[in-house]
């Protein structure tokens, strides 16, 4: 790919992904977070799934600690991205602080998709900064807009939140193992809801990731999935 096409792809992706910030800002307001709190999350945490998890767990009645754990579990994938991106970025001590902040799904995806390191770095910076700027502007508009609308249920905002989670989930269940984990987690979370305190059902499902991710080829899962795939 040429430098021009890296630029174009990075900016396009930034604009699309950044605009989802509207959904985050609106969801935060629907879950009774203030616009300040929504913006703080977008500025400092800057990781969509983790931000949604925090407001989701608190809205479900979970404790702040539960919310932070859920956000951390979701944010952990950024640690793995950093491992792959950092060597390419060749950042010194101070620049590393910035590289870390901009390490998200999209900037990592673009960086790792390039053929040489120079274009990887360019793609990472444009996508990282681009998403950051658009995501934060969109968060503010979403939060203020939803606040102006009033009752979240009347505008369907309380369904927009789980729909947004579903959309985030959608891109992470391309293989049968992750689909199996997702379906089990859905059921387990519902079964635990009346029994455990709020928030606990959500973070408990990470145990399923450990169980089903333990073996490279999980026979039990494999067989169940084969029949499911044939449907």
């Amino acid at each position: 790919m040429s430098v021009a096409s890296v630029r174009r792809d990075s900016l396009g992706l930034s604009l699309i992904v950044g605009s989802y910030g509207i959904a985050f800002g609106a969801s935060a307001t629907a879950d009774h977070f203030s616009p300040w709190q929504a913006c703080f999350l977008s500025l400092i945490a800057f990781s969509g799934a983790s931000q949604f998890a925090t407001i989701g767990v608190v809205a479900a009645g979970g404790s702040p600690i539960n919310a932070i754990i859920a956000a951390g579990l979701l944010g952990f994938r950024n640690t793995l991205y950093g491992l792959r991106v950092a060597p390419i970025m060749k950042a010194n001590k101070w620049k590393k602080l910035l590289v870390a902040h901009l390490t998200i799904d999209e900037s990592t995806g673009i960086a790792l998709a390039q053929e040489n390191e120079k274009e990887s770095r360019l793609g990472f910076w444009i996508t990282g900064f681009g998403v950051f700027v658009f995501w934060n502007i969109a968060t503010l508009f979403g939060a203020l807009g939803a606040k102006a609308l009033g009752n979240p249920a009347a505008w369907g905002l309380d369904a927009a939140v789980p729909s947004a989670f579903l959309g985030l989930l959608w891109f992470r269940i391309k293989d049968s193992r992750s689909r199996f984990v997702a379906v089990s987690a859905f059921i387990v979370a519902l079964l635990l809801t009346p029994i455990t305190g709020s928030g606990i059902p959500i973070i408990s499902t990470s145990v399923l990731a450990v169980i089903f991710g333990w073996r490279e080829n999980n026979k039990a899962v494999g067989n169940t999935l084969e029949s499911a795939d044939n449907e």
Partner: protein
Amino acid sequence: MNSKWFAVIGTGLLVYLLKLIGASIPEEIVSHPRFVRIANLIPAALLSALVATQSLAIKTHLTIDHRIGGVIVAFFALLAKAPLPVAIILGALTSALIYRFA
């Protein structure tokens, strides 16, 4: 400081710290295949659990209301390869209509 700010600030610090750790440690430490496999499955589990609880639970009791109608529509929109914003808007619209007329 109220509990929402506690959650918000805690999330911000932890999520940034996780990014910084990734950018700062050598790759070999956490590149064991099992570890990576599990880490990649965690979002699928947590996000799915969030869909479930946000659409079918109020605090600690399960309920079927307008929200699940919206989420089901969003599900089919995504299945039909609709872009994410379209799916979210269709879900919200459906839910708002059920809320209004049911």
